[in-house]
């Protein structure tokens, strides 16, 4: 449940960097995603066509505050997004460093506190830091979005043990892996670990065939969720025969 909304597909898809509007349209459909992320920029000429794609997709919109470097910028952007997109949902990004695109944890908590008090339903882009997660929840967030790896890096879950600890530490909080996912196997891995959803953009948009890749990610996320719900076997250090030994013939000389 994401702020009271149940999602069948646990893939959330970004809408940036596609080779054409038609490919974006087809990729959204092929992915099965029910949530797509959008942003706000200075009024351009192609705004109308994009608005049509958003409407036709039937998806719930998750506006972001991408590019904001201070709490104030992020809060203003969120307020503008709420009016424009007609949703209380906001993917809160407050970037601490232009090269790493790592979140600024202090400004993130400050902005989250302001936005939650104003009735926003905040999806904070955060790290796997447990105390930061707790501060965001204290601020009013009911979803957390830890990064898998730096935005656009395609490295997957670069701190798997840390993310596993986060999953264990917040058993009741919906957790979305946001950023760094490069391959469907990595998305499946996140879902197998018990994360509630995966948000990605570049891996689909920059594929040679974004529509086919969108479909592959949709399938991977679905498989990972099904595997988690089915219960994965525990890892073992040693081999254990799967074929029974009982009833085996004595054939050795």
């Amino acid at each position: 449940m994401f702020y009271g909304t149940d999602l069948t597909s646990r893939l959330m898809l970004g809408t940036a960097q596609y080779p054409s509007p038609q490919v974006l349209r087809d990729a959204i459909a092929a992915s099965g995603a029910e949530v797509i992320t959008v942003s706000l920029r200075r009024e351009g000429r192609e705004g109308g066509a994009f608005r049509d794609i958003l409407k036709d997709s039937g998806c719930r919109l998750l506006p972001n505050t991408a590019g904001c470097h201070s709490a104030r910028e992020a809060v203003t952007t969120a307020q503008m997004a709420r009016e424009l997109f007609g949703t209380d949902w906001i993917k809160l990004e407050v970037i601490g460093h232009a090269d790493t695109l790592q979140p600024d944890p202090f400004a993130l908590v400050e902005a989250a506190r302001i936005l939650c008090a104003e009735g926003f339903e905040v999806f904070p882009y955060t790290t796997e830091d447990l105390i930061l997660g707790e501060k965001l929840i204290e601020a009013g967030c009911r979803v957390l979005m830890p990064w898998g790896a730096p935005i656009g890096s395609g490295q997957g879950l670069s701190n798997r043990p840390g993310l596993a600890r986060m999953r264990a530490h917040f058993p009741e909080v919906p957790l979305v892996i946001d950023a760094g996912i490069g391959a469907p196997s990595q998305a499946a891995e996140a879902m197998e670990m018990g994360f509630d959803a995966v948000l990605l953009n570049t891996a689909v948009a920059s594929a040679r065939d974004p529509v086919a890749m969108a479909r592959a990610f949709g399938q991977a996320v679905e498989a990972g969720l099904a595997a988690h719900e089915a219960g994965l076997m525990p890892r073992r250090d040693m081999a254990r025969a799967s074929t029974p030994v009982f009833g085996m013939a004595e054939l050795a000389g």
Partner: protein
Amino acid sequence: MRIELNGARVETGAITLAELVAERGFPETAVATALDGAFVPRGARADTALAEGARVEVLTPMQGG
């Protein structure tokens, strides 16, 4: 008066934010506005006066990740 609109210095005859949006041909309901870094809701644009050197942002939906 001279103001800054989306980062560009422009000369405008508009007295209010609502007049500026209309003067520049922005689709009124398809943009969100901010004045000097603070959000101005659609309904408040007509009552929001512009001053010399005001920094206005007019934003629209865009692709994002």
